[in-house]
């Protein structure tokens, strides 16, 4: 499996993705974008692409720390804000999050993490109205396929330029765009509690899972063929199950069909309809 090559041409990616942002924002009647800038790599890349597509002055980067967020995250977000000359605001979500968390002393870490992700979504969408921009998403292909995301939380956006790039490809493109190495090289983390890292929580590395997902999804390998290609059977099984179980996070809620024409089934239009 060492011969699975996920190398991308960064200039081609940059051209397609900045064109996408510009086209899909302007044809909706907007010229500006809002991005939740966590201090991590995915949002740094989305922010940089939006700044290149629309001009830094037309991008609002939001830093939305909770009281337990790593101070490093704020610093790294600031590096991106300064480098790509985007507008920025910093809004603590501690008050709104704690107001809900304090209602249940038994609350699990997962529930708290979901509340933080959804509080950030509320601020993001509120600011899109104030800034007259659209929310640019920050989810990559690896986390979308694994369902490693909070539904209606960090997954919420109006358009997502990086959702067809695996995590390792996000790193490649980020390097080409000159995103600071300190952000590219640190361990990916949702930063919902101290010491959390994606790879610890998932139980495998992005390098491994990117390659497996590439075979399963892009190259249409069966799970058995992935095992033959050198992946451990238990790992393949775990990933295949995750993909299937998280399909619900990748679609709008199914509507119970009773009429002759129903949204989602036989009322079919692109969002770009008429533009």
């Amino acid at each position, binding site marked *: 499996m060492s011969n699975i*090559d996920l*190398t*991308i*041409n960064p200039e*081609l*990616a940059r*051209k*397609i993705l900045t*064109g*996408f942002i510009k*086209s*899909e924002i302007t044809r909706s009647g907007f010229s500006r974008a809002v991005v939740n800038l966590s201090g991590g790599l995915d949002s740094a890349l989305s922010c940089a692409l939006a700044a290149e597509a629309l001009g830094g002055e037309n991008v609002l980067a939001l830093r939305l720390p909770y009281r337990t967020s790593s101070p490093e995250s704020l610093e790294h977000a600031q590096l991106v804000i300064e480098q790509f000359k985007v507008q920025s605001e910093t809004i603590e979500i501690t008050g709104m999050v704690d107001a809900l968390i304090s209602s249940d002393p038994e609350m699990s870490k997962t529930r708290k993490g979901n509340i933080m992700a959804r509080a950030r979504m509320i601020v993001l969408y509120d600011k899109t109205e104030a800034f007259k921009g659209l929310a640019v998403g920050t989810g990559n292909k690896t986390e979308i396929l694994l369902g490693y995301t909070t539904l209606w939380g960090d997954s919420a956006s109006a*358009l997502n330029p990086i959702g*067809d790039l695996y995590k390792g490809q996000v790193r490649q493109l980020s390097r080409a765009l000159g995103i600071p190495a300190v952000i590219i090289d640190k361990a990916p983390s949702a930063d919902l509690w101290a010491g959390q890292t994606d790879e610890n929580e998932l139980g495998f590395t992005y390098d491994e899972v990117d390659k497996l997902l590439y075979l399963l999804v892009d190259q249409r390998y069966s799970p058995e063929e992935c095992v033959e290609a050198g992946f451990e059977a238990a790992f393949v099984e775990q990933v295949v199950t995750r993909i299937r179980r998280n399909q619900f996070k990748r679609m709008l809620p199914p509507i119970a069909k009773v009429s002759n024409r129903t949204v989602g089934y*036989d*009322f*079919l*239009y*692109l*969002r*770009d*309809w*008429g*533009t």
Partner: protein
Amino acid sequence: MKLNLALAQINTRLGVVDANLEKHLVLAKQARQDGADLIVFPELSLTGYTLQDITPSVSRRPVPGDPTFSHLLDASNEIDMVVGFVDEDSRHRFYIASAYLSGGQVLHVHRKVYLPTYGLFDEGRFFAWGDSVRAFDTRFGRMGILICEDFWHASPPYLLWLDGADVLLFMSASPGRGLNDGEKLESARWVENVNRSYANLFTSFVAHSNRVGYEDGLNFWGGATVFDPNGERIAQGPYFEEALTIATLDLNQLHRTRARLPLLRDERTALVQKEMDRILQKQE
């Protein structure tokens, strides 16, 4: 004889025929000013590509009384044009079609015969397939039109070749995909290889007009090309940007190439027919 051919790789507004028509008329005028004799627009250039349920509301008839075609036919008095549209027949079936307009007349309409309905494509859900592949005469010689998936099957270009077409006009709305470490997208590489192969195999001119822009998350990569009867690339449009790419086709090249390489002369059509009859009969 020389043919100055303009390939218009345009972006379109999805389902807004009047706005797209305006762009056709502006570019036709510009191409004429640049010395072009013929301008070729991409697949579904008057409507946009991913039409889905918009389809029935943007259909047109390629006749003088049609409010869209009346303008295009007027413009064709100045420059020959190939335009892409949704054709609705008298029984209200909808086709992906391209029309060749010249001197105020419709010389030919091709209805797409292969509708991709797999992967990201869903054309068979919304459109009827065309039922003929015919070459047609123009003031520059005999030509043939094929639309995107049509030329992924070897038989339509082959039929046009046997039917006398020396210039093959291909048009697409080809979604860009297959990003790897290559210089261009896989989809661009595939299409260019196929175009070049037909130019080589049929010792003919092969021109390709592909759109640009986005529809939701789909990108279209442009990259218009013309290959000559030797398989040499004589024109290349930019990728991802609107452009008018003009190529001069020296039609005497057909004479020189076919003197060197008489593939058309030696093509054994009776053998093909005999074996096709056998193969098809056996399948029954």
